[in-house]
């Protein structure tokens, strides 16, 4: 780590310990998201890490970004994911948006004053995203949106929603992307999801009922590029989810080792039982392997090497590992690990979603296999 990275990591650690850690248990129980915590990230300049300085970004690399996410995930996976998703939307705006769109929407996002949500999934189109049904009908001066989007992170707290909707025929080429603001008429937030974990993150349905979106909010000013824009974020999105998984795993490992050293049964610290030593050795090895994979993916991305296979592998390996590690961590703590007095059971519930978002791990395997086939054909 360079000096800047170490400094940032230390500052974030302090912030998370002060502002996030003490409330996580209660906020998880009550499904409460605290926008002020996200705004606090803005004070550290981390809400638009890879974005250009001229729009208020830090113009840093993905190698920097994954360190930030890794650190935050040690205290809260939901806030780390909120940051990752909002940054992904900013990246898409920056790459596909018009100059006017960038100037209008990016500064409030990079400063952390506002949050952005990514609206792709629908009740019947999850993995098969290109089959989405939300309609955008051309009308005078803009488009009328009708439909609904499911599992939208930070819904209700975000101001900017990047919405993929159908302007043309079936398939991916009929999809366009729109910048929808929360105060537009016909936009509303529907049912809030009750979830196994990740409960601090507000996840809800977003509904469009004859929602008029002015022409200037069509992303990049051209129809039919929405799906491409949405997919452009995927590779790097996977790197970020991998980083979050590694942060979570690291925390679970720290907690288990500390507990195993303190807890005595049969007159010795449980750490000294070989059965637990093997578990902990495996946990540490698997997480180190995952982290190296994530770092390599980030480095290649920063060096402009497109490697979808590596990104999918990093996400797959890091999140499957996080699931295994958090499950074993609960096991090492035994009865107290299962109670909500300790955070381990929450870590385990939070880990599961990482295997599902940014492409389920089944989809990662499909991507990896597709790339393998290309290599060998």
């Amino acid at each position, binding site marked *: 780590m360079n000096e800047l990275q170490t400094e940032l990591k230390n500052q974030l650690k302090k912030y998370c310990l002060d502002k996030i850690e003490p409330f996580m248990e209660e906020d998880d129980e009550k499904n409460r998201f605290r926008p002020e915590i996200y705004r606090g990230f803005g004070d550290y300049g981390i809400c638009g890490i890879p974005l250009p300085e001229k729009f208020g970004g830090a113009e840093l690399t993905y190698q920097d970004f994954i360190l930030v996410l890794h650190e935050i995930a040690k205290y809260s996976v939901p806030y780390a994911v909120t940051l990752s998703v909002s940054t992904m939307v900013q990246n898409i705006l920056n790459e596909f948006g018009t100059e006017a769109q960038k100037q209008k929407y990016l500064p409030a996002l990079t400063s952390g004053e506002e949050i952005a949500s990514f609206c792709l999934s629908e009740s019947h*189109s999850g993995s098969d995203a290109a*089959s989405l049904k939300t309609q955008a009908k051309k009308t005078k001066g803009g488009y009328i949106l009708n439909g609904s989007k499911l599992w939208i992170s930070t819904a209700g707290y975000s101001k900017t929603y990047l919405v993929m909707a159908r302007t043309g025929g079936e398939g991916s080429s009929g999809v366009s992307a729109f910048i929808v603001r929360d105060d537009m008429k016909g936009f509303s937030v529907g049912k809030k999801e009750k979830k*196994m974990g990740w409960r601090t993150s507000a996840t809800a349905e977003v509904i469009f009922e004859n929602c008029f979106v002015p022409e200037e909010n069509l992303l990049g000013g051209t129809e039919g590029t929405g799906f491409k824009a949405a997919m452009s974020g995927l590779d790097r999105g996977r790197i970020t989810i991998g980083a979050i998984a590694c942060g979570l795993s690291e925390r679970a490992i720290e907690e288990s080792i500390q507990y195993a050293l303190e807890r005595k049964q*049969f007159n010795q610290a449980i750490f000294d039982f070989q059965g637990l030593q093997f578990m902990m050795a495996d946990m540490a090895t698997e997480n180190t392997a995952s982290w190296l994979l994530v770092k390599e993916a980030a480095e290649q991305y920063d060096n402009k090497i497109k490697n979808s296979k590596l990104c999918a592998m990093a996400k797959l390996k890091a999140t499957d590992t996080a699931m295994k590690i958090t499950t074993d961590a609960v*096991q090492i703590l035994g009865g107290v690990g299962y109670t909500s007095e300790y955070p381990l059971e929450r870590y385990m519930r939070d880990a599961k979603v990482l295997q599902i978002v940014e492409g389920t791990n089944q989809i990662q395997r499909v991507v990896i296999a597709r790339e393998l086939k290309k290599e060998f054909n």
Partner: protein
Amino acid sequence: MWFFSDEEKQIQKVCRDFAKKELAPKAEHHDNEETFNLDAFKKMGELGLLGITSSPDYGGAGLGATAATIVMEEFGKACAGSTLSYLAHTILCVNNINSNASDIQKEKYLPKLISGEHIGCMGMSEPGFGSDAVGMQCKATKAKDGYLINGNKMWITNAQYADVVYLYTRTGTEKNDLTTFIVEKGTPGFSVSKEIHKMGMRSSPTGELSFQNCKVSETQRVGGEGESTIHMMKNLELERITIAGISLGIAQACVDQCIKYAGERKQFGKNLAHFQMIQKMVAEMASETEMLRRFLYTVCYEYDHFKKDNVLASMVKLELPKRATKIALDAIQLHGGYGYSREFPLERMMRDNKLNEIGAGTNEVMIMIIAKNLLKDALRT
């Protein structure tokens, strides 16, 4: 299973219907609210299930491990939390009184426990003594006409609802100086000091019991002083087998739900059943569940007809819960976002099942028992 007796098949049917009607519809609610389905518990009493392994002299059904495990499986499919409370009552409390208490004690406690008028729990683990239960420190000291009990018991299922506690205490300094008592709710000095909030099994109340100069008369002592370890040994196998039954129920419910969903959910123009990756997940989880079912019920059959086997019971307790967690995690994965949401029961089943890897002896303790038995001779040299 093909070798179930007619009576066991009948129990299976009755429990399946009961679970569908009384447990499944309310499982989500009680999980969300962390409340106990007392109504269903009382109805289990009406069906005669609360003393399934206990003597008919006191209202019990006098059946074996197979019948008890069938109940666990069927209830476990619908609401594992309610099933855990049922287990703590029926197997940990009622069955232990039935096998270890005097006729006078049985006459006094069993009829009401078996009818469902009273609820029972067992007190073994302590804050500092979980896996190392025999190291317990909750003390019973001899006093005039009885004993004074001092100490705490942790992770006690049914604590808040229990009228009767089947309690293990320390009465001497030697490792095995442990003595069993029956303590009634309302005995001065006895209280539930804490409610414990858990990841899963949230419809099963868990608490900490506190004893502060709690006076019990000698008539509340079960057997003689120092007999607890003998009591514990008697029913260990049954306790491990039955808790594995809950995991079997969970695994089967996950398989059933996945098969249903694979036929309903469409992506890329066809239902999920057409994707080989989904086929693999369904085929593997179903094969594993079937293997676990046959393993579990074979051990039950041997327990009922031939002999108790500590190693086999520990193997059952290790393998069923461990594999059911994996199956439940895969079932969530197969359902994607929906699996993660509370609209589907899968995430609850996974949370519930994790307890079975910890309660009634952790996986690690099972491994220790199995290894120590198998390596007995080798360990001497």
